[in-house]
């Protein structure tokens, strides 16, 4: 490995509570997620206005919109996305990655959260291409278009939004929790082995993705209304409005105590 910069969770009461949950009852993943959401509540409120998150979600709406046009490549360019250099789906997602990095470079305040949003966008793109079992390897830009046409109706767009916010939420929770997890693996801890630690990470990931179902119906309704009203040109401001509400829904979903 190259160099890495590791962090720790703050030694405050809410975060000490999270650490205690990881150490003592890691099987109770909802409790860990809830504790983390409460400890990070202020940050999660701030992220509801994060321009990096909004931008990545906006890109997703634009790919979905462009997919409905015959000339997909030209439409992508008209919507501010790069023109495919090769026909490869892998290559095109890499191009979008570059463009998004450039777009986000001025949002310094986002910190690592900007990168988390970018990772969620990439995964949503690649996962959507493979939704019918199609491999990313050997897939083309045409396959991206076909996959996104299927998700360009309001109902199916809700699935896209769920994937995106589920991944973003999972990465955000793990970005925080994994500052401590390794310190609580081994005899005498709730996570007795690395295998248990892996299972915990997988469970937390899955729990976050399931929690994101809370935004699915809302996203479907929002996309149908705004895309129709704006004639396929959802604006960044409209996307920002959606993201703010989606983040609030996600935060409240995690904070629920009846799970």
């Amino acid at each position, binding site marked *: *490995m*190259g*160099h890495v910069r*590791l*962090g720790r969770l703050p030694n405050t009461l809410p975060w000490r509570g999270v650490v205690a949950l990881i150490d003592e009852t890691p099987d109770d993943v909802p409790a860990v997620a809830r504790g983390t959401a409460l400890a990070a509540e202020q940050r999660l409120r701030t992220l509801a206005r994060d321009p990096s998150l909004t931008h990545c979600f906006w890109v997703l709406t634009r790919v979905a919109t462009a997919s409905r046009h015959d000339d997909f490549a030209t439409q992508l360019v008209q919507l501010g996305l790069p023109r495919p250099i090769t026909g490869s789906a*892998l290559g095109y997602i890499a191009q979008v990655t570059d463009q998004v990095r450039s777009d986000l470079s*001025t949002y310094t*305040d986002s910190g*690592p959260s900007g990168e988390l949003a970018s990772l969620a966008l990439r995964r949503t793109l690649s996962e959507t291409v493979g939704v019918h079992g199609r491999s990313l390897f050997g897939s083309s830009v045409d396959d991206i278009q076909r996959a996104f046409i299927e998700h360009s109706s309001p109902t199916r767009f809700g699935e896209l939004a769920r994937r995106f916010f589920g991944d973003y939420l999972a990465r955000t929770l793990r970005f925080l929790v994994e500052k401590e997890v390794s310190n609580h693996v081994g005899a005498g801890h709730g996570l007795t082995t690395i295998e248990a630690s892996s299972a915990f990470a997988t469970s937390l990931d899955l729990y976050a993705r399931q929690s994101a179902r809370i935004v699915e119906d809302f996203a479907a309704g929002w996309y149908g209304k705004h895309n129709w009203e704006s004639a396929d040109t959802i604006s960044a401001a409209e996307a920002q409005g959606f993201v703010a509400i989606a983040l609030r829904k996600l935060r409240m979903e995690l904070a629920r105590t009846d799970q």
Partner: protein
Amino acid sequence: MTETHVLVVCDGAPLPASLRNQNWTRQIPVTSRGAAADLNLRVQNLRGTVLGTINDRAADLVHIGAYVYAADQAVSRGGPADVYGQRWRRTFTLCLPVSDRAYWDRDQVRSALAAVLHFVTDDTWDFHFTEAAPSLQQLQLDLHDREILGTPDAVVLFSGGADSLCTAVEAVVHQRARPVLVSHRPAPHIDARQTALARLLKERVGPWDFPPLSFWIHRRGSDAADTSQRSRAFLFACIGTAVAVELNISTVLLGDNGIVSLNLPISAQLVGALASRSTHPKFLHLFNAFIGDLTATPISVINPLGTRTRAEVLGILTQAHCSELLAETNSCSHTRGRPSATPHCGYCSQCVDRRFGSIAAGLEDMDLPEQYGTDIFISDLPEGEARTVAESYVRFARRVHEAGDDELFDLFPQLFDCIVPSAGPPDRVASELVAMLHRHAAGVLDVTSRMVVRHSSDLAQGTLPPSSLLRMVVGPTEPPPLVHPADELVFRQEGQRWAVRFAGQTRYFNQTKGIRVLARLLAHPGQDFHALDLAQDRPPEDGPVDQAQLARFLPADVSDDGLSLTSPAD
């Protein structure tokens, strides 16, 4: 407001009016000349001779790299308490003098410079170039006379680590190249190591001389406010390119094994450049775009090891019959203040990867566990870096091992950054990457299994510390009371430490002279030792002692008093 927006004024460059009244978080002067210089910047060749003058654009390149490196260290990115990383990303505006302002002011060059720095540092960079007085930018380096260096045809960026050694060896043995070794010297002890290794290279892999050039570029007068040094790779590439310009060489080799080069996050807390991108394919692609128009004949910085795992890279030494050189390299991130007997800390990400890699490559004899301050497999790993890196490293390997090719891109979308146009068709590049990742993961798990077998006795007896890597892999063993009845007394070496059990409690002690003396006395009950013999590790005059035991102080079982004295091998 958490955003850090810093104005850096380099060597007294005049400030444009547009920058004077902005709301800077900080303003920092960087000075490389005069008595008050806070940036040391000079070049030295093998013989310690300070040479002549480097050409304008190449000198500018080194200066840009050095100024960026100085600015990077001058501003904190926040510490561990910055839980959300809100201070990690900074915005820099640099005012700096250059000799060829017309070139550096070109939009294409400026945007390429900003792009490569943004990728490798996570920061945002903007530059304002001013015309420098001719004497101001001169660098003390004259390589026009190639004969001085033996007419080299390649530049190897040489850190003194295992991978840079392998790069140099492969270049000479397999490519028949004649590389000049270019080093960045941030501290004296690193320079000494690099120089010694270059000398050994000449002796073992000659007849090529491996002429070294050392660039002394570091802060002076105060400690760095931030030590992550994400811009160091950029500086390193800049000085390599400058030397290539001077020597009319088209290839600069910056070697790192492919796993280090990708540096995928072993833990989800490592986002963006929190995991360094020093030889990342995207960094090299962007850097080459940046220097594309620097000279009439394009220069490329390439990583010849980029599709091979650490173990595969170390195989270069075996094939070239010089694997003993591995012992002379150092890969540790925490070199400052380390004892010479244990030059590797053993627990940083570099050490952990090196340790696994050398075992996987069958080169453990050249990379002895004793050279590591901490043996992660069997030592008690304290909370923090040691435990996090070790646990995450194996967990990462397990995850990669279990994942299919497509799933790897889902789990690690960072892989899309590695698909760069200059590397070839995207699908082929992606296939090579996932194949390498799977080979790496299989290697890590294989080494883990071998170490479990090697220490199976200790694992079965439950004598390894609970937070050692092997215990975290295997899990709790029999409860200690079953292994150590309350009335059992133990004084036993376990790896690098000694376990002492008394009155039902076990404690672990580091290898010290005192513990060795105690072990020796306990191994020879009823025998007299002179105090000086004990102090100097001499055998007693009147008693035959097993020399093999004495050499390692691994005493034999003693039956009386229920005292158990055994070696790990027992």
